[in-house]
């Protein structure tokens, strides 16, 4: 609540004071972005975790103490090192086939991050292209594209993914394709909405009047101004991609054994809840941390890129 102001009674100076101090050059957009982005701790933490995850995925061969699919017959269901009967040889214990869980999680980071990246890139490229076309040309093309997206949104996301996997057959790549298709409508809708808003702006008219081709208008004039929400969606899309891929793996419809995929590692975990809690706990923790990191980053990006929230 602001206290009542007294401006009304203030004497307005008669001579206009001209501010002659030179104004600072506006900060570079990236510098400005970082200033907004780094005011909150959450997104920075998310970013740090993501960098660590990427490094783990890149250097999995060096970091993992064991090959991910190596079965140690003398160590079935060995507990983690701090638990009774555990040894530092298998830091997070082994699964029912005697494979080192930590090594599988480390290699799993490679699977989840690379497939997640593939999914988001494909969904983003195709989605933005379709959204641009729909928003730019309107009419029949737009109706066709948007009604198709409505149909895809009418199905619960995981169910649509399952249907696609049922058609294509269960495999990691097919699951990835399914998740691409599931994510597509969000990118299309966002881009179309942004394009339609931008198309009515004066700068677009100006560009059009000065003879810019449709192609130039679309890609060089309009597209860059529509990207902020798309970037946010891409970050959040990464987290749902990791989640959906893991869920499909868990249902046996994604990565197939022995691929060290986090969801697939949990596929038969239910039978171990009684005797080997570590088999159940750690792969899921890896999923949670990854998804959380991308959600933190996405939230931060949304705040930093949304001009309405800027002070």
């Amino acid at each position, binding site marked *: 609540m602001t206290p009542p102001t007294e401006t009304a009674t203030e004497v307005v100076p008669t001579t206009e004071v001209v501010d002659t101090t030179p104004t600072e050059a506006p900060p570079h957009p990236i510098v400005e972005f970082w200033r907004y982005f780094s005011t909150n701790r959450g997104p920075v933490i998310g970013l740090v975790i993501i960098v660590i995850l990427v490094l783990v995925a890149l250097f999995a061969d060096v970091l993992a103490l064991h090959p991910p699919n190596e079965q140690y017959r003398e160590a079935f269901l060995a507990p983690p090192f701090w638990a009774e009967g555990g040894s530092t040889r298998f830091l997070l214990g082994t699964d029912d086939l005697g494979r080192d869980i930590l090594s599988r999680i480390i290699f799993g980071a490679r699977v989840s991050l690379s497939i997640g990246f593939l999914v988001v890139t494909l969904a983003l490229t195709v989605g933005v292209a379709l959204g641009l076309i729909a928003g730019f040309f309107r009419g029949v093309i737009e109706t066709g594209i948007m*009604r198709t997206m409505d*149909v895809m949104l009418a199905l*619960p996301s995981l*169910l649509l993914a399952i*249907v696609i996997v*049922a*058609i294509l057959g269960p495999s990691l790549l097919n699951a990835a394709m399914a998740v691409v298709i599931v994510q597509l409508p969000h990118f299309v809708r966002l881009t179309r909405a942004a394009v339609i808003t931008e198309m009515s702006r004066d700068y677009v008219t100006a560009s059009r009047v000065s003879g810019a081709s449709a192609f130039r208008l679309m890609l060089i004039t309009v597209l860059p101004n529509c990207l902020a929400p798309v970037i946010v969606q891409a970050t959040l899309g990464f987290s749902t991609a990791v989640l959906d891929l893991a869920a499909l793996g868990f249902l*046996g419809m994604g990565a197939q054994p022995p691929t060290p995929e986090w969801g697939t590692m949990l596929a038969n975990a239910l039978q171990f809840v009684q005797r080997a809690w570590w088999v159940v706990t750690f792969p899921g923790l890896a999923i*949670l941390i990854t998804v959380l990191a991308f*959600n933190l980053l996405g939230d931060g990006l949304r705040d930093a890129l949304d001009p309405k929230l800027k002070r």
Partner: protein
Amino acid sequence: MLAFILKRIALVIPTFIGVTLLTFALIRLVPGDPIELLAGERGIDPERHAALRAELGLDKPIVSQYGIYISDVLSGDLGRSIVTKTPVLDEFLSLFPATVELALCAILFAIAIGIPLGIFAAVKRGSVFDYTTMGVALTGYSMPIFWWALLLILLFSVQLGWTPVSGRLSVMYYVESVTGFMLIDTLLSGEKGAFQSAVSHLILPAIALGTIPLAVIARMTRSSMLEVLGEDYIRTARAKGLAPFRVIALHALRNALIPVVTVIGLAVGVLFAGAILTETIFAWPGVGKWLVESVRRRDYPVLQGGVLLVATVVMAVNLFVDILYGLINPRIRHQR
């Protein structure tokens, strides 16, 4: 108002047609001969093959095949399961109440906890409570629910032994299905302990399924509440000297809840996607588990019919929410 409702319904029709096209295509897109798929691994002799082809109308042109499919669908004939030979619609109807019961309990759990958390977080903005709640909410929102369900089983069923691991009711009880909702049926049956058994079976799946909606509702309530609390009419209400509780509970909350109501309505799709995983883990005999099994058994008529029915239910609920939203908020109703 009637024009608004009719317009909304008209908008749903093309989507429904699109979904029927998708489910129609589903069985034809699967690689391989549909009849051999239907016959399963045992194979089929050529005579029966031709007979089935004619019976299923697969020898007709694709457009008339679709025509037949649509008229079958509209008359309630969704084919029969390959495995059980029961009509798909009957199977769906017998399993649907279990899913609805689970989803309703999950969303009630999410509302009962999410809305108060969101309100307190907004009112105490910037406090430790606010940060903790929003941190927990974001974690809940990021939770792989199949893993969360496993953790709940690990803690409450295995370590503490409080709840059973799977199913809807202990085998000790036999309860006649009246409404299909186990909580109501066990109460009606009057059997001692049956209701407690039903509750103990329901509680973990409902928590697992309700966690993500809870997180979404808490975050939504907080941000919507913060927005409303900055409005002039709240300042007026405070300036009038109303009790803070009255300002928050009456003036702010009523307006803050409008977007929350939409979120709750639109959570149906999310709940169903979650139900697929939750039901599979807790062996809950509902539609989600049924569909997962249909994929595993390559029971394509069940998948085809089930997908269409689920999509129809989701669309109907979304339509209902849309209309309801128009009733609460006249601005939506008069939008062009």
